[in-house]
Structures are given as C-alpha cells and as structure tokens.
C-alpha cells in the first residue's frame, strides 16, 4: 500500500507541476507583455516596470521560470489590482462558498445516482430501466447553463417558490446544486448500471448464491463492490467536469464562489486573480483525484498490491 500511495502522490505532484508550467508558458506565448497583462489596463508605467523587474522579464526564460516557480511555491500570485489585496487570498476567501455548492451537488448525485443505477441494473430492460436510461441520457447532454436558466424561469419566476440567485438561506442552494448535480448524476446512473450488469454474471456472484447468501448480500457486498471499481475511476475524472460546471453554475446563479471570481476577474482583466483561481481549482482537482486513486486502491486489492 505504501508504494502505491507514494506512486500516486508523485503523479499528482507531477500533474500539478505540469499545470503550473502550462500557465507560465501560455502567459508568455500570448501576444503582449506579461507584466502588462497581469497588471491590467489601468496600470501606470512605474508599476509595470516594477513587476517586469520582479518577474525577471529581461532575464532568460529559465530564470523567469525559476522566479515563477518560487512564487508559486510561496503561493504568491501578486496583488489583485481591483481590490489591492493578495490575489490568492481573494480567491481563498471564496472557497467555502464553492465547497458548499460542490459538496451538496456531489452528495445529491451520489444519494440519488447510486440507487437509480442499481434499480436500473436489477430491473434491466424493464419499463423502469428505460425511464431511468432516457432520463440520464437527456440530463447528461443538456447544457447546464441552460438548465439553470430554465430552473430560474420555472421555480423562481413562474412558481416563485425559490430564490433565483444569490446566497443566504438553504433555499438559495437548491437550484444551483441540482443544476450542478444533474450531469454528474446522469453519468453515475449509467456507470453504476453498466458496472453492475457487467459483474452480475461473474463466477463469484454465482459462488455467492451457491453459498446460500441472501440476494441482498449477493448484490450489495459481493457484486456492487466489484461494480464500483470502474465507477470510482470515472467519478474522479468527472470531478473535473464538475469543477468546470461549477464555474458556469456559479455564474448563472450569481453564487459567490471561486468560479464566479474567476469569470469576473477575467472580464476585468485581473489576471493575478485569474492565475490564482485556475491554479487553486487545478490543485483541488488533482487532490480529489489523488483521493479517488487511493479509494480505488482500497476497493481493488489487485491494484494496491501490484508492487
């Protein structure tokens, strides 16, 4: 297990390093002076000169890269010219809001998605299964910014039972979290269904029946534990889509999270904050995938013990 954890940890750091380097590269490949881009249109020449100096823009690329990496390690992304505060701090201030939204959505998706997927698999090809499949296919392909708008139209404007945007009461959380959960939920349903159908004819499920175990025991620990292995991997990958979706959903519902900070900073050309937000989201994503990988190793001993 130790070797496995170490390997996954190393890979995660590697991915994060890759993300940081891509940001560095993109900033320098894009036409224009990086210092000018970072400081925004209203910066005065002395500020630009100071930042150019600090970023080492007159030095060779490698030196610039070293300076940049040093800053990243110290979580120093400069100051936000809009707020005059530390860029990373500004982003971090909005993390709790995003976490609230994302965790609620993931929770909703898991609580609804797993049972639906299991029901669909156990009643494969029945009417119930068909309904669940059509529902999940539709929700997976619907653009979530549009779903959010329709929700606002129906529940906030039409029925007037829920607030349309902003944050505060639990009612504010309902529409955004459902919107964000839907595509994730759809994938979860489909994966759980196919995963379970795939293992239901395996030898060990037959063995479990031959052992005289109750059908509930045959399905739950024996079949499901195996069926979950591929599901968990995809959940990890889909978490990236969820984070991307969060950016959109936060914008639609004016939810004061990291995603909204990101989009607002982009429209104000506050690139210090943009950089910090992108890296933070990337870090969250990488960390989540590390957790998922470890969970995968826990679920499948063949992976964990493969040296």
């Amino acid at each position, binding site marked *: 297990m130790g070797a496995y954890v170490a390997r996954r940890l190393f890979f995660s750091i590697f991915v994060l390093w890759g993300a940081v380097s891509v940001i560095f590269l993109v900033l320098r490949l894009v036409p224009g002076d990086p210092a000018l881009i970072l400081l925004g249109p209203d910066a005065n020449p002395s500020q630009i000169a100071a930042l150019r100096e600090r970023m080492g823009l007159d030095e060779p690329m490698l030196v610039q890269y070293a300076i940049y990496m040093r800053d990243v390690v110290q979580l120093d992304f400069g100051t936000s010219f809009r707020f005059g505060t530390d860029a990373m701090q500004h982003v971090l201030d909005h993390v709790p809001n995003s976490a609230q939204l994302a965790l609620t959505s993931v929770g909703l998706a898991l609580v609804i998605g797993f049972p639906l997927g299991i029901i669909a698999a156990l009643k494969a090809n029945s009417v119930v299964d068909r309904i669940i499949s059509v529902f999940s296919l539709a929700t997976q392909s619907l*653009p979530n910014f549009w779903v959010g708008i329709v929700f606002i139209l129906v529940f906030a404007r039409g029925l007037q039972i829920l607030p349309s945007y902003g944050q505060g009461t639990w009612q504010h959380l309902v529409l955004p979290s459902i919107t964000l959960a839907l595509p994730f939920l759809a994938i979860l349903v489909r994966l759980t269904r196919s995963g379970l159908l795939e293992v239901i004819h395996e030898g060990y499920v037959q063995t479990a029946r031959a052992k005289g175990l109750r059908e509930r025991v045959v399905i739950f620990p024996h079949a499901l534990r195996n069926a979950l292995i591929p599901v968990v991997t995809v959940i990890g990958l889909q978490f*990236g889509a969820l984070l991307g979706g969060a950016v959109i959903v936060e914008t639609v519902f004016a939810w004061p999270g990291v995603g909204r900070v990101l*989009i607002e900073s982009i429209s104000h050309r506050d690139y210090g904050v943009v950089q910090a937000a992108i890296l933070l989201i990337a870090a969250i994503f990488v960390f989540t995938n590390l957790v998922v990988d470890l969970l995968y190793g826990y679920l499948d001993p063949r992976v964990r013990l493969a040296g």
Partner: protein
Amino acid sequence: MSDVVSDLTRPTAPATPPPRKTGGKRPGSGRIRFSATVVSIYVFAALFGPWLVRYDAVATSTPDRLLPPGSRLSDGSLAIFGTDDVGRDLLAQILQGARISIAVGVATLLLAGIIGVTIGVSAGYFGGWLDGVLMRLADIQLTFPSILLAIFIAALLGPSVVNVVIVLAISNWVTFARVARAQVLSTKGRDFVDATRTLGARTWHLIRRCILPACIAPILVVATVEIGSVILAEASLSFLGLGTPTSTPSWGVTISNGRNYLSDAWWISTIPGIALAVLVVSFGILGDALRDRFDPKLKNL
C-alpha cells in the same frame, strides 16, 4: 473453449439488453437513422437557413422589441420564435447560431484531429522515448479538466471564433492521439506492413499507404462521439463571454443575452437552448450507436 453451456450461461442471454426493437437488422440502426436525420436537418438549416430568413446583426427595430413567439413584426413578417431585446428575429439568430456551432465543431475536430493523429502516429510508429513522453503528456492532459484550460487560454486570447477553435482543439486532441496510436500499433504488427517494409518502402510511404487508411474509420467514429461535447463546450464558453464575441449570434451568446430579460421574454434564452440540446443529444446518440456498431472497444479510450 467452445463450451455451449458456458456460452449459454454467460451474459449473451437476455440479461444484457437484447438488440433493441428497431426494425433494423444490425444493432442500433434505428438509433442511427433517427439521430442522423435530426443532424441532417440541422446541417441543412445551418447551410440554407440564413438565406431564407435574413439575419442582420446590426439592425435594430425598436417597435419589435421583445415580441413573444408567433408575433407579427412591423414589416409584416411573422416571428415564429419571437424577437430579442433589440427587435431581431430569434429564428434568424438560431439559424445563424446553428451555422456557427456546426462550423466551430467541425473546424475544432479537424484541427484536433490533425494534431492528435500526427502525435499519435508519431508516438505509435517511432515508439521508444518519444512514445513515452507524448503519451504521458496525453495522460496528464486527459486527467486535467479541459474546460479550465479552455477558460484560461480563452481569457488571455480574448473572444473570437478562431480562438474558440484553437482553445477547444487544444483540449480535444488527446482522444485522437490515443486512437491513432492504438491503430498504428495494431497495424504495424500485421504482415502486409512488414512485407511492405521488407520491400524497402520508406517511412512516409508506409504511414500514408498502410497506416493512415486504417486510422480513418475509428477517427471518424471518435469525431462523431466528440462533436456533441465540442459544440456544448463552445456554447458554454460563449455563454461565459469567453467564446464567440458578443456581436456573433452563437447560441451561447444569445442564451447569455436573454438572461437579462428572463422576466419579460422567456423565449430568448429558452428556445436556442432547446435547439442546442436537441443537436447535442442527437450527436450523442449517433456517436454511441456508430461506436457500438463499428468499434465497441473504442469505449475505453
């Protein structure tokens, strides 16, 4: 082992879905026919629609502002889907939007396909460290949420149709590279390739004559699977103000624009969204069906 009984007890039996009752003989032919028809209608509408229903980006007509679907316009024409906040016909906007969505989708996949196939074929053909480096790169990019990368690059480049294509191509080349590489590896081992090589064929000739033709079918399948999500990504970026510029009537821009008038004009955001959803769902069904029929193993890529 050709054990009839164990064959019987395996999931071939009805526990797994039997071929859907589609009326067609081959699996998924009903799905393919249905979704291909819808897609064709869109393509047709995108090609010829804007000729039939004129759309003028800068024209404004104050008396025709925010008219609901089915209204008569001041010039006597009928606005089936209503008008937007400056009095432009929504149907014309949606047709124009179809053109943009499909054009961006196709252009993105072409670019991503060229990048991906080039990288995949080089990695597969030459192998060794090049293969290692390129495929690790692909792994990393694949684990990384592509929309984030797209947002970042789009934010720096600014909104434009060309930039959207570049951004989305960068986040979509990996699948093509993997498919091409897998195809090269399986083709490379075949006898006729060996034979050609023994005859003294040069690398370029081998790639062009033996390897690329083998890649075409799976690449087309993958492209169909991907185009729906590319169109969706374009709409998302445009909705966020990072895709097509606000002067372009893409679906994402129109939906975003309609958000300001939700109380007075529900149709501005809703109807283009339906157009988008139907197209994406159809491409999704078409892609899945083609993959199931021609190359089920692509599912894992």
